[in-house]
């Protein structure tokens, strides 16, 4: 096993440009998806946390359940939407990085929204009376709380990033794993494994984990620095 790891890392070190192209695409797709999902998911989670409406409990249950959406099912669903034979075929988005971003956004959105909902709801208990007294109820109050607890929301965003960079099912189906166009780290690892080139696959896997680790470390340090200034 150690042999495989070492030879894998060695192989990876010699792959140069093509490897970094693949890494670049992986990061572009996953980071875009997480950014989009955060933009949509945080306000969505905050809104559900603060609003009171019939069926709210059911919505929360469904949102939490959607965190467990199987990537391959999402991929299939988006594929059927974007296929030429499907409703959005005109857009010509199938087998492009854009399609991969869409699929991953769908996958990650419930995670960020559900976790944000929980955090905002917990904080709302503390803030509600005072904010409503000042006249900041509803949407304004929700956004105020969201901004106030922004540092603790970072974990939700990182959970989303973890999910996006780790999944292979969705990007494989909507991207097609096309060499030089839609091939990313996870689909390359799957491909090399199925070709029986296990050392290379393992080496790529280690690179992927290292990159995600680096991203998490960077996010953590930025958060600490920013938090110091506001407490």
């Amino acid at each position: 096993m150690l042999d495989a790891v070492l030879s894998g890392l060695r192989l990876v070190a010699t792959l140069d440009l093509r490897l970094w192209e693949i890494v670049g695409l992986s990061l572009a797709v996953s980071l875009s998806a997480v950014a989009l999902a955060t933009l949509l998911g945080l306000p969505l989670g905050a809104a559900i946390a603060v609003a009171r409406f019939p069926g709210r409990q059911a919505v929360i249950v469904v949102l939490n359940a959607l965190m467990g959406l199987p990537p391959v099912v999402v991929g299939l669903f988006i594929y059927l939407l974007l296929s030429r034979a499907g409703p959005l075929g005109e857009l010509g988005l199938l087998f492009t990085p854009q399609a991969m971003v869409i699929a991953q956004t769908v996958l990650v959105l419930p995670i960020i929204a559900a976790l944000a909902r929980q955090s905002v709801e917990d904080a709302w208990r503390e803030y509600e009376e005072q904010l409503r007294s000042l006249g900041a109820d509803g949407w304004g109050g929700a956004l105020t709380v969201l901004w106030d607890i922004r540092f603790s929301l970072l974990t939700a965003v990182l959970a989303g990033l973890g999910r996006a960079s780790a999944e292979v099912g969705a990007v494989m189906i909507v991207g097609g794993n096309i060499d030089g166009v839609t091939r990313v780290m996870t689909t390359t690892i799957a491909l090399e494994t199925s070709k029986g080139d296990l050392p290379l696959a393992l080496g790529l896997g280690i690179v992927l984990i290292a990159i995600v680790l680096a991203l998490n470390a960077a996010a953590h340090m930025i958060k600490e620095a920013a938090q110091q200034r506001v407490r």
Partner: protein
Amino acid sequence: MGMILRVLLASLVCASAQAQTRFITVASTTSTEQSGLFKHLLPMFEQKTGIQVRVVALGTGQALDMGKRGDADVVFVHAKALEEKFVAEGFGVKRFEVMYNDFVLVGPRSDPAKVGGSKDIVAALQRIKAAQASFASRGDKSGTHFAELQLWKMAGIDIDKAKGPWYRDTGSGMGPTLNTAAGMNAYALADRGTWLSFKNRGELVISVEGDQRLFNQYGVILVNSAKHPHVKKDMGQAFVDWIVSPEGQAAIAAYKIGGEQLFFPNAKG
């Protein structure tokens, strides 16, 4: 919020439109791609015509399905009966024969069914069933899978009835099936191309090869733009024309792994 969404969607669509450097989408099979043929072949075509070929590699069933949906411009698979049905149903314009490669039966060095060195695939399958030796099947509606089912039929075995715990249906591509066979020391039917580039062999070696019945014919079909007007008819036709032309055929013959030719061009005319 709504404004932001509209801008994002617009730039998404714009980017996708701009990304339309001249390219066609070809639906082919995982075994063809994993053999490395496309890496060898496509740059030549691209250089000659300036058309980028984007290959989506799936199982044969899925590749043809892509053609039916209009998600590909050309299909390039190896399942003659299915291809002819595809054209007959109006999804494809015309089928051209391109090349053939062959299947080999791989199996464990220990050879429990005693089929090694034989040139008779049908007899070998009968012996494997009799010995109830482990056999890994792709089971994924691929060209290879259909070929395997045909061979069982030729051996007079109704595999649906005859299968027992010795017959493993992996439902996956050639590589993963070989991984499984290597892991279980089982026999498996593989295309020569995938086998030659497969690195995780374990105890597996070639048990049976050279039987005429193991030959695997490839066909290329332009997707019918009458059914799907957006199909890139001209560029797709250029690809079909090139691959059956003397130049394309020579390029196919020139592809070798470890000095061995994998595909044998046989386009007519």
